[in-house]
């Protein structure tokens, strides 16, 4: 960005350079709409910086003028008229600048809504405090459910259908697009097109209660081929337990309360209050972005979810050490 090197605006440079860090940043834009919004942001911020500096120059000039004589009560009417002219001119300039911003904003809005036909539809439901993700296919058997991790093909328009399942949440992946609320009883839509492959972090942006801070998700933009093979793998039922320990975990999972809230396709576990766990071992994070997936983090989470994410809706299910070990092995196995 050219502005990054503008010596006259060191503050702005700092602001833009620091903005280039992170995988959840509106200034690190990799989606079609995030890119055009970033351009609008830079335009408006630059123009506003100029306006602010002009006002500051006027302020400094006014204060440094160092008038010594106090000419009240006789105000010079010609002088007052001159100042009126300047104030009117400044007001006209303000109006023009404001009008320019309004028009620029309007055209950006129009460009964003003219995104073209959709290649893929994903239904996202916001729940306290995780994301329920459903890939919707015209052929029902090709639809599937997952949670907290969304894969999309790069360069394609993806339509997100958004609705809150309990309270209001907001779906926001700053690097790809602006946010859109998930409102109970009022479905919303958001179209996203990733221009570059990558892993982008998103987070709930509308305060939704106790664990609002821990309601993150990932959007992974892959090539079409990689996306297709991922989607095919997701459509499969859960893999069978590969060893005795995982098999014991499978049995324990079904015997305990776990199955009443979670689904593992291919088993009798079909609860829908919690995230679908059919391929939980393949996801990068567990518990809506809380920990990277590993057997250890799975075990820690299952052992004591209320300490790791206080107030979340997963109860602590009493397990023996063996049960905990085998269930975590089974979960990690569900690639």
């Amino acid at each position, binding site marked *: 960005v050219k502005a990054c090197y503008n010596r006259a605006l060191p503050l702005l440079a700092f602001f833009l350079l620091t903005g280039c860090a992170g995988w959840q940043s509106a200034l690190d834009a990799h989606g079609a709409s995030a890119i055009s919004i970033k351009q*609008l*942001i830079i335009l408006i911020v630059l123009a506003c910086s100029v306006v602010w500096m002009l006002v500051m120059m006027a302020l400094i000039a006014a204060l440094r003028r160092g008038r010594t004589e106090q000419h009240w009560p006789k105000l010079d009417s010609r002088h007052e008229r001159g100042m009126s002219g300047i104030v009117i001119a400044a007001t006209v300039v303000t109006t023009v600048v*404001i009008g320019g911003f309004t028009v620029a904003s309007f055209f950006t809005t129009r460009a964003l809504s003219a995104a073209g036909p959709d290649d893929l539809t994903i239904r996202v439901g916001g729940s306290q405090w995780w994301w329920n993700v459903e890939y919707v296919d015209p052929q029902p058997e090709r639809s599937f459910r997952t949670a907290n991790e969304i894969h999309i093909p790069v360069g394609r328009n993806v339509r997100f259908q958004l609705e809150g399942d309990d*309270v209001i949440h907001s779906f926001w992946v700053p690097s790809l697009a602006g946010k859109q609320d998930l409102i109970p009883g009022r479905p919303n839509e958001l179209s996203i097109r990733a221009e570059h492959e990558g892993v982008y972090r998103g987070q709930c*942006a509308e305060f939704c209660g106790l664990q609002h801070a821990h309601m993150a998700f990932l959007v992974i933009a892959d090539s079409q081929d990689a996306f297709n093979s991922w989607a095919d793998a997701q459509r499969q039922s859960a893999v069978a337990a590969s060893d005795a320990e995982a098999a014991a975990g499978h049995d324990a999972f079904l015997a305990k309360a776990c199955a009443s809230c979670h689904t593992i396709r291919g088993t009798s576990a079909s609860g829908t209050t919690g995230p679908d766990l059919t391929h939980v071992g393949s996801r990068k994070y567990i518990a809506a972005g809380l920990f990277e997936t590993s057997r250890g983090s799975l075990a820690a989470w299952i052992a004591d979810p209320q300490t790791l994410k206080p107030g979340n809706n997963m109860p602590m299910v009493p397990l023996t050490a063996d049960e905990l070990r085998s269930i975590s092995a089974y979960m990690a196995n569900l690639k």
Partner: protein
Amino acid sequence: MTDNAVNPETCDDELEDSSLKAALTETWKTPSGFWNALSTVDHKIIGKRYIFTAFVFLALGGVLAALIRIQLAAPEARLLSADRYNQIFTMHGANMMFLFAVPVMEAMAVYLVPLMVGTRNIAFPRLNAFSYWIYLAGGLLLWIAFALDMGPDVGWFAYVPLSGPQYGAGKRADIWAQMITFTELSALAVSVELVVTIFKQRAPGMSLDRIPLFVWAMLVTSFLVIMAMPAIMVASTSLILDRLVGTHFFNPAEGGDVLLWQHLFWFFGHPEVYIIFLPAAGMVSTMLATFTRRPVFGYLALVMALIATGILAFGLWVHHMFVTGLPRLGESFFTASSMAIAIPAGIQIFCWLATLWDGKPIFKTPLLFIIGFIITFVIGGLTGVMVASVPFDTQVHDTYFVVAHFHYVLVGGAVFPLLGAIYYWLPKITGRTMSERLGRWVFGLIFIGFNLTFFPMHILGLEGMPRRVYTYQPDLAWHGLNLFVSLSSTILIAGFLLFFFDAIRSARRGLPAGPNPWDAPTLEWATTSPPPSYNFSRIPVVNGAYPLWEQPEVLSVAAGLRVGRRELVVTSMAAAEPEAREASPRNSIWPLWTALTTTVMLISSIFSPWAVVWGSIPVVVSLIGWFWPKGTPEDES
């Protein structure tokens, strides 16, 4: 009451200055003693209580802000639990908006407006006493609930369904909603008093074009309160009904609508910002004349800007809802209206700059705060223009960018002028000046601390940090700036501590101020500091907007008010020609009883709908006591 050799029918023109003052003191004083203190209807005593209470809430809200900053200084900090943190940020917002910012502006007006328009008491002084007690009760309700771990935890705008019966367990959201009722009542009462005082009690000759600009600002603000508060009243009452008796205003499963809440809330909530900002703009305009030694440039333009802001304020609430999925065309309309409000704001800035340019700036503490205000408020206004743009807003809405924006507007735009106003008017209130040397330190610490604390938040927001998160994970790029912000806030806190120290020190041991320490032009400086209970021994007559500059030697006065009873001059609305002598009520304990019975009714109604029925009986009884005729001279006239 006592016959101090003065016949109650005696008029002020029949007495010498000294005996006139003695007689007026006898008529208007608040005698010492506990019950007398509770019964007073003197706008100055009530105004002082109001201001003091509001600053206590500012300090408490500041403590909450400090806790927030300690928690956010490092990722995944566990100093505060999620539950406690959510209560703290909700309390911080609700407290600062409803218990500090709005009340402190009304408090300044309760004290200053009657003095600035040259009358002896505010209109409806008993209602004024009532409004203070109700405000205090609402504040105590909120803070006691918080101390009992029952503080609201749903954010200061309490979106449904999170605050509704299904997800907002316990009584926390009810306490928030009922606190709103208390502050609504007190704000509406003060607004009605101010409108009547400003329209009908101005000193003879103070026509509309001679009203001090702070008074104009309070007039517009009062109308904003009167028009905006009904929306929040409908909203909070519907929420209480949903929670208490199972109505379904906001329940989509039963045909209700969760977005209805947001429309109602922001139809109030956006004007609320101007209810806080316009008085501050009025303070700037009024103080600026004194510290540039010339009339403020563009009086008419400034008044028109106040009115235009007040009208536009009602046309842009939707910019708080740009990501809720409203139709795009409608959103563009609200982009245009939200941007348009920058025009009256700009006009005010340009007029102030012209005044500074043409005047002779005197760099006392209040002027420093005005300069700090211009620097920061312009930033806040420009970021306001940014969030008015729909696409821009979809990236920064509900992030720290917005947190930075509204702190620039509310702290830079309203608290800076307010602190300047305290330095300016406290000598009038206490009769003692604040320290100019400490004042410079206070300004420097607060100005630098504020900008270092809040400017980086713009960047945090663009880097993707949502607001209202009790913590964040270490793999995000936010910890450096968050630590910087938390460290910077100590400078800001030091500035406020020094301010409180200076205010308390000066009230006890400051140098005597004299009636007009700044050589200021408006009427409140025409009487002693602190003013006597009757404000002016003889009612001033003005023939300009800057009476003490235009008639520096001796102010002309009106005569004909009786001294043995509380009387005021009522003047015509536009030209302020004297129309009548009007009685002003005596002290009464009934406003306090009415406030107490109302408080009992409102708080019990959190727990049972029947409280509204049974609780209204004591309210009616106390109202009968309030209006019972006692045969005093005031009742007769």
